Structure formats: C-alpha cells, structure tokens
C-alpha cells in the first residue's frame, strides 16, 4: 500500500488532539494542587505557575480527615473487590462450563440487574439496612457494592473461562481429580489475567461510587472518599489548592490500578464483544 504524507499527518494530529483532550483536565488538577495560594488568583489561567509548592499535600495529609477517608475507601474497595472476584469466579465458571436448567434464568436475572436504575434501590436499601445496624457502617457499603458488581464481574470472568480449552480439566479429571480440584489447581491459575482485570474493575467501581455512600453514610468516621471529598469541598470551599491536592491523591490508586490492568480488561471486553 502506498502511504501519502497528508493523511498520515492528519492521523497523527487527530491522535494528538485526543491525547490532549483526555489528559488536560488531569494536568490542570495537578497544576492547581502545586500552585501556592498567593499565586492562585493572579496566575489563575497560566499554564504553569512561576513557583510551585507541596504545602497543600502536607496540609491535607496532616490536618484534615483525609487519611480516614483514604483508609475507609481502601477497606471498602479492597474487600468488595476480593469478595466479588471470589463469587464471580465461581459463578462465571458455572456459566462457562455447565449446562443446567436454571442457567438462562440466572443470565436473565443478571442482565436485568444491569438494566434497572440503581437509584430505585436507594430508599428500600436504606429502610432494610437501618434496623440491621448496617447504615453508617463500612460493612453495609461492602455488602451493597458487592451485590452491585457481581453481575458484570460474572460476565467478565465467564468470557475469560470461555477462552480456556475444556480438555485441560478433562485430562485432570481422568487422572482422578474432582471437578473442584481441577478448577482450583488448573483453571484458576490460567485465569490470573482475568482475575486481575476483575479485581481492578471492581476496585475502581467501588472507589468511585457516590450516591449510596452519600445516602448510607453520615459523618466523617465511616465516610469514603467521594463523600469525604464532597464535604471537604463544601467546608473548604475557598481553598482550591487543598481540594485539588486531595483530588490528585484520590485519583492515584484508581489510575494506578487501571494502568496495570487495562490490557487485560480490553482482552476481556474483546472476548465478550466478539460473542456479542
């Protein structure tokens, strides 16, 4: 094929435009978090401040409830990711390897949960969790987030299991292993990329959930990041540097996780998308 110069240049320019559009808001967040307070207004629209400072970060880490939010979010997102991945590996395996009567009902139920507005559950879940003492508690959030994330995680894990040849466990079973041993010893290790993708996907989803956290949590002690940052924003509504420093810190775990797993996630979606 002949390559002419003009389309190539247009192609690269378009790519560059997308990269700038994707990264500019994050760049701006970082820039303001490093701008000293006295320059914030005078250099508001400059691309880079004439002096930089880390003082907003040290203030946020030492004098705000931020470390509590961070710890709470880490507990909630971490536990949710682990529990969901365990449940979804099991159910994904069932959907991938077995043909059973209720299979289509289960798939249908899981699809249904992706269709209806979750805001619809705000009121009943609040009413149900209150007498159980699960409002204002991290356990309550973990239970709710786990259930919300299990259906999609199941489909994701199923598509990874589908990619592993069946002969492997059949060979193991001929050697006398039970199906569960074959699953644990042979199939799971092969699905590690899928498990990583599911862990990362659920972790970021739980890390960003806002509405249920707002509804179920009240007060700083059990507040997760989104809720904490929102109260932080209304309380320190003039201190942009500190808010943005908190924002950058909130972004780091999710972004790191995503960069590590995005390859696997694209793989999983590819497998699913091809099946359509």
């Amino acid at each position, binding site marked *: 094929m002949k390559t002419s110069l003009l389309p190539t240049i247009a192609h690269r320019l378009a790519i560059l435009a997308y990269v700038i559009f994707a990264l500019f808001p994050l760049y701006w967040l970082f820039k303001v978090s490093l701008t000293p307070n006295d320059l914030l207004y005078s250099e508001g629209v400059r691309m880079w401040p004439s002096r930089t400072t880390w003082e907003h970060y040290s203030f946020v880490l030492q004098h705000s409830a931020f470390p509590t939010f961070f710890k709470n979010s880490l507990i909630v997102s971490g536990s949710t990711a682990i529990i969901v991945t365990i449940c979804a590996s099991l159910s994904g395996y*069932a959907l991938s390897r077995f043909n059973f009567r209720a299979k289509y009902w289960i798939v249908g139920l899981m699809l249904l949960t992706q269709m209806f507005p979750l805001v619809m559950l705000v009121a009943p879940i609040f009413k149900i969790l209150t007498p159980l003492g699960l409002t204002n508690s991290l356990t309550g959030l973990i239970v709710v987030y786990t259930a919300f994330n299990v259906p999609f995680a199941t489909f994701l894990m199923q598509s990874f299991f589908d990619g592993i040849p069946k002969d492997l466990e059949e060979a193991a079973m001929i050697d006398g292993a039970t199906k569960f041993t074959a699953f644990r010893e042979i199939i799971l290790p092969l699905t590690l990329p899928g498990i990583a993708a599911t862990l990362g996907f659920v972790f970021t989803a739980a890390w960003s959930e806002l509405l249920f956290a707002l509804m179920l949590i009240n007060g700083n002690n059990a507040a997760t990041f989104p809720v904490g940052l929102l109260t932080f924003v209304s309380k320190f509504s003039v201190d942009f540097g500190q808010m943005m420093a908190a924002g950058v810190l909130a972004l780091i775990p999710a972004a790191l996780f995503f960069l590590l797993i995005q390859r696997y996630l694209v793989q999983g*979606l590819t497998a699913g998308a091809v099946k359509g």
Partner: protein
Amino acid sequence: MTMTADVYDRRQDRRPWQKRLADASEPYLYSAPALILIIVVMLVPLVVGISYAFRDIQLLNPFSGGFIGLEHFETLSKDKAFYVALKNTLWWTGASVFLQFTFGLILALLLDKPFVGRGLVQALVFLPWAVPSFLAGLNWAWLFNPVIGPIPHWLFDLGLMSQPGNILSDPQYAMWGPIIANVWWGIPFFAITLLAALQSIPRDLYEAASIDGASWFQRFWSITLPFLAPTIAITVLLRTVWISNFADLIVVMTGGGPADRTQIVASYIFTQAFKALDFGYASAIALVLLVLLLAYSMLIILLRQTLLNKG
C-alpha cells in the same frame, strides 16, 4: 442431537444416586454466593421499592407507611419539576450518548491503524475512564470555575462570553457542563468496545475492496459499518440506560441547579429520597423511569434483531 446424547447418557448412567445428585447440584453451588447476594441486595429491594411507590413512606413521619394506591402517580402527573426533569433527561442522555459514540468511533478508527507508540497512546486516551466519576465531576467543575479554571477565560478571549463567568450557574448553558464532563469520561468505553469489534473484521475484505477501487468512504459504509452494527446497537443500548441513570456528575457539578435546569429524573429521585426523605414518592418516580427504560430497551433489541436478520 443433545437430546439423544442425554437419553443415551441417562441409560448408561450407573452412578449411585448420591453422586448423581452431587453432580447435578454442582453448578448451583458455584453460582449460589453470587445469586444469594443479587437476590437479597437487589431483587428484594427492587420488589420492596415497587411496593413503596403505592405507599406513603416518609422517613421522618412515624405514622406514614399506609397503602395509598395511585396517589403518588396522580401527584406525579401534575408535578412540573418532574416534566422538566424528564425533558432534561432526554437532552442529557441524547447529547451525551451521541457525542460519546461519535468521538469514541473516530478514536477507535484512529487507533485501529498501526503506528509507533500505539500502546502508550491507548493507555493515555483510555485513562479518563479510570477517573472516579465524582472526581471527574469536581475536576470539570473546577475547569469551569471563573477563578481557577481556564475555560471561562478562553471563551472570553474568543469573544463568546462578555466576561469570564461560570457556565454552570447560567440557566441557559448549565447543562453543557455535565454533558462535556460526561463525554470526556465516556469516550473510552465506546472506543474500547468498538476497537475490539474493528479488530475482529477480516483484513482481506478491505484488501479485496481496495483492489476493486473502492474509496475509503465506500469501504467504511459497506464493510466496517455492517460489521460494527451489532456491537453499536448493544453498546448504545447499554450506555443509554446507564447514562439516563447516571446522576453522579450532575449531583457533584450543579446539584440539579440553577433552578432545576440540570435536574434529570435520576438526580430528582435522589433529591426526593435524600433531601426530602419522601421514599414513597421517590419510588414512584423510579418506577416510571424503569418502565420508560424497559420500553426503550425492548425497542432497541427489536431493532437489533431486525438488523441481524437482514444481515
């Protein structure tokens, strides 16, 4: 064929009944934890929520809880704020899905061509998807802020604004704030799924078409688009449902204001439950939204089916 195999199996089946029972229940045991969670935390509240729509449930009123029939729906039919929210939902969802899809498709087509550094570019342009939605909302609210954000100043410099003001508090343009944030945040989803679909199109089709002298546009129209159609239908369906329920950006950026100009149905439900603590009324609105979304989903699935049958 499976039927005969089944019968054959059953005749040959000499396993003791305990073993047979264990084998038959195995898939159910694997799916049990997930199923129990979904039923207890999602399905039961869904049914309870539907029943709330016909009851008087106010959190602060201990005497509430009675069955009131269709009263909420009567109130709803006269609720001006609801109609405004419905109109805003259409606008918010339509504009967000259209722009996310258009730019996502262009990005996927750009990334489908091999070039140096493609892996890195892919990771960078997909990054917005990893940004927690509340943070994306705050981030864009700050970009629109006239004190520390560049956007009002750029618009002022371009002569599009008489002075650097806040778009988010301008009744006429406020909705564009959350929409732009949503487009930024959602392009990667379309780009990822469409890129996956593009890469499954057999390359020789394009070569054959180029030999026949088809132009880029002809190839796109008669090869790429038909191949992408099923993926497009399913992703547009899913995104439409998700985005019309997606209140985070609006709650964070404008809180539904100014004067309800950015209030969508999802954020209105949340406001009724969270601020007014009127759970009954909130559930009634949610039920209407659910019915509308189901009707929409049915329509798209039918459309997809006809497209598939034609192809």
